[in-house]
């Protein structure tokens, strides 16, 4: 039997209890439409939709089974963790090895994001900067820690010339406000 769950952000920013009834109705309609269109979803035991009702605007950032989302996050964590094993000249062009502590800090930061947030892609620069990035339409964001150990979040609309950079003193700085801002940006 298909069980449809409209959830708030599990580990993150908003509380779905404040979602306006219209938003919930719309989310249900989308869930049902998705189920009808996608047999895989219809058969899923746990269809999970994130609603984010800030400013009265319904946003759905990620749709999928909880198990499949967890698997995707696990793959991302695995890719990032593999960077800890990289050594000098990892790319054959003198690439600086990422600091394992920096990789761990990124993993800790990601653990603070809600499971149903858009899943980013890992990235590693040849100067040792490590992190992840999101790209959705004109919305771009990256969360990285540079070779000096400074973590920062960058938000950019690609149709504009510049973005916004937030320095994060520690993974704990990924709080509800930052998560909300990132979610809004990527929506």
């Amino acid at each position: 039997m298909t069980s449809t769950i409209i959830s708030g952000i599990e580990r993150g920013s908003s509380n779905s209890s404040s979602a306006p009834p219209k938003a919930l109705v719309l989310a249900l309609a989308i869930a049902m439409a998705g189920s009808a269109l996608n047999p895989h979803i219809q058969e899923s035991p746990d269809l999970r939709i994130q609603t984010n009702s800030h400013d009265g605007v319904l946003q759905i950032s990620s749709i999928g089974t909880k198990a499949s989302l967890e698997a995707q996050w696990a793959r991302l964590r695995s890719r990032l963790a593999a960077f800890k094993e990289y050594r000098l000249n990892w790319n054959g062009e003198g690439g600086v090895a990422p600091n394992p502590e920096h990789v761990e800090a990124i993993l800790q930061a990601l653990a603070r994001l809600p499971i149903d947030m858009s899943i980013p892609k890992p990235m590693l620069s040849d100067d040792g900067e490590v992190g992840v990035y999101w790209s959705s339409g004109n919305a771009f964001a990256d969360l990285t820690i540079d070779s000096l150990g400074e973590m920062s979040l960058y938000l950019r609309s690609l149709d504009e010339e510049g973005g916004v950079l937030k320095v994060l003193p520690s993974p704990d700085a990924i709080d509800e406000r930052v998560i909300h801002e990132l979610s809004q940006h990527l929506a």
Partner: protein
Amino acid sequence: MAAENPCAEFFARLDRKIEDLPEPDVCTAWEALTACPEHSPGPVEDNEELRRRIIYPTHIDTADAPSPVCFSDLWSHGLSADRVEYRTVGQSRADAIGAIDDWNFDNADKPKRSLRGFAIVSVSDLRRLKVNDIRALAIFDTAMPTNSSHADVCAVGRMDKLAKRDLRTSVWHFLKKGLVAA
């Protein structure tokens, strides 16, 4: 005594560092010079396009698209590209495959590289990019005897962390938009 062609001298050095380039206004003057007068078609014009090779896995992320951090050559020794007007795609492909084969032979212990495609980007788009109202990129004619179409794209001027992030994201966006199959 000033060098006769400082641009050519700079790019002839194997140990060159882009951070050693002069201020942006001097770089603009260098853009009118040519690195190899006997082979070059002349300085890179605004109405030209560049063809940049995209190599797996160096430039590629998990979704098989160019990664935002894969073009750090802009800040290290210059981002190499071919001038589309002066190099056929077949020549660019042969150059790339030859270089990749050599690299794979010399680095048998590392993941094998392959040619994923090319990114075509407009010179004027790149030259329009600014940081704090100052041009962020210079594009130099760095023709070589074996490749008269060779050009280098380099970051110029001092940049703080936000400016670098803006620039690399803009360049990534242009290159990603211009991606074509090899």
